[in-house]
């Protein structure tokens, strides 16, 4: 196995780091405190090609690779979980399914604006009664009398980038008698009649990110905006989430690593009992364990990203990466707060924010329990 990054990957990571330190870190506390979406950062990332990293230049992408995308989310998450998920949801959940399942016309119509970051993307699968059980879709899509448009009715919830996105990949039931095989995927524009964005969720973490309901009231979607074929929606959604898990695993990875960076710095400054905290063996062992966990997570995340890049099956790899990285991030950020003591519990230091941000990585885009289902099924355990 080759554990070395290419020279381009080394270079792109250096750029992400500089960008994150200079442009993202200074805003992180304010975004969290004020629950503010960082549109100015999205515009800066767009200029640098960070909203379409691994897509071909032909469609307006940056011509990079999947690992370079994962590293982008990782580096952003080291300093701001909110900014990281904006890139991840946009890339993995909207750009990727259009690129992977769209017709040439759909790709040429939607990808240039999405990949250049001119427009943000989002993904609508989850519904109030269809979370982990995504097959329970109640949003319906019916061809109208003219046969030219689908009419969508229903609602989606917890949609990341919901009130800032202009392009959505949305799942809806076209034939409820067929169960999973009756679900279809659609490309929906914000401007389509009958589409609206509902309430914005107030969250525990990633508070600057947009999380909203989407509402479809006789929403008119042109027939040509069907993504894939009728009945392929569930498959498209599951494949999309496989890719999304690499992004969220990278976000978890960055959050854990960011917390370690903060803890290393703090424990070398804070003095108790006449010694720096870093001189206590408990601190050293804690940090050693934390670092080892995140390093293991990094190998899993990078391996999944490389497999996707090489068009190898990566569904189980992505599930393991997300499961491990998310649980490691929750553990490591919690331990970082403990190392900071009382100060760690205050909003004066970023580790409590990282701990709150990390929790969601165990839940969204497939809970840890769903990842265990995916992994155990691959073992043939039923």
């Amino acid at each position: 196995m080759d554990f070395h990054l290419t020279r381009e990957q080394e270079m792109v990571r250096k750029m992400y780091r500089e960008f994150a330190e200079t442009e993202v870190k200074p805003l992180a506390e304010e975004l969290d405190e004020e629950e503010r979406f960082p549109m100015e950062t999205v515009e800066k990332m767009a200029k640098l090609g960070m909203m379409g990293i691994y897509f071909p230049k032909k469609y307006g992408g940056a011509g990079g690779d999947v690992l370079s995308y994962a590293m982008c989310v990782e580096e952003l998450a080291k300093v701001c979980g909110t900014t990281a998920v904006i890139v991840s949801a946009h890339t993995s959940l909207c750009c990727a399914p259009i690129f992977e399942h769209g017709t040439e016309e759909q790709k040429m119509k939607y990808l240039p604006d999405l990949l250049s970051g001119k427009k943000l993307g989002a993904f609508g699968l989850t519904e109030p009664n269809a979370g982990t059980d995504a097959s329970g879709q109640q949003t319906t899509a019916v061809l109208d009398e003219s046969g030219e448009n689908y009419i969508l009715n229903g609602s989606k919830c917890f949609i990341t980038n919901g009130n800032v996105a202009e392009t959505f990949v949305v799942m809806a039931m076209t034939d409820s008698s067929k169960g999973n095989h009756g679900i279809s995927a659609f490309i929906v524009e914000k401007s389509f009649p009958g589409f609206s964005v509902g309430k914005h969720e107030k969250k525990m973490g990633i508070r600057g990110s947009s999380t909203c309901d989407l509402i479809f009231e006789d929403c008119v979607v042109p027939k040509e905006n069907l993504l894939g074929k009728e009945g392929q929606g569930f498959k498209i959604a599951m494949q999309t989430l496989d890719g999304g898990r690499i992004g969220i695993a990278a976000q978890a990875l960055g959050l854990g690593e960011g917390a370690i960076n903060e803890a290393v710095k703090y424990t070398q400054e804070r003095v108790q009992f006449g010694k720096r905290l870093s001189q206590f063996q408990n601190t050293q062992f804690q940090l050693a364990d934390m670092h080892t966990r995140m390093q293991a997570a990094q190998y899993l995340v990078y391996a999944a990203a490389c497999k996707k890049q090489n068009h190898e099956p990566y569904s189980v790899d992505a599930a393991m990466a997300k499961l491990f990285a998310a649980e490691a991030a929750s553990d490591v950020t919690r331990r970082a707060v403990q190392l900071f003591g009382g100060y760690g519990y205050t909003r004066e230091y970023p580790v409590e924010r990282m701990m709150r941000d990390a929790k969601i990585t165990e839940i969204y885009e497939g809970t840890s329990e769903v990842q265990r289902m995916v992994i155990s099924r691959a073992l043939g355990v039923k």
Partner: protein
Amino acid sequence: MKIIVCVKQVPDTSGKVAVNPDGTLNRASMATITNPDDLNAVEAALVLKEQTGAEVVVVSMGPPPAEGMLREIIARGVDRAVLVSGREFGGSDTYATSQILAAAINKIGLEDEDIVFCGRQAIDGDTAQVGPQIAEKLNIPQVSYAAEITKEGKTLTVKRMLEDGYMTIKVNTPCLITCIKELNAPRYMSVGGIFECYEKPYEVLDYEALKDDPLIDPTTIGLKGSPTNIFKSFTPPQKGAGMMLEGADKDTCEKLAGMLAAKHLI
């Protein structure tokens, strides 16, 4: 139209500074960066490229690993890079370096509408000599300390930032401008630029390539051609924390006078 930007790879002094027993900088053990002022020069060139469609060529003198730095500069949007590299050039001081870089610029070709940009000075030597000396060797006008640049036709209007004010100068191409950090904020490398940078033209000019230029002579390049002798280099003692007195009233002035008198300065 072509813009040639001279850049230098320097030790990263924000990290650990390593010094050899003889007091010289231990460059090999230090991380390297692109000299900060040179990135302002690159940015100035890229802004003009966006306005005029000019080709931007970056040139540096240094050992072969400087390629990494040059590729990173290409990733910011520069069209091609030239590395001037050869044992014969080693040990050059500012005089010899400017001689060699001027020869390299001649080789690249400096035409009527072309501009050379340099950073004001490098953070390792802090001399601010190479840019102006290159202009002299090339026999072209120079404007140093540029804090603002506008171009109309063949004329550049440059606002120079001096210690006690600004000076605005108009200069015709071809010319050389040295840039300061107040000029602009250097852009980041872009993802697209990074994934293309190793496909862009990259050329190495060695002694053989430059030896026919009248500026290149064994007595004017390398250690032998360098009139500068370094007797000792050292880290200057750190200044103590200063003290600020606020206000322009009589009490403050008397307090200041008292403090200076106590130190026998007045």
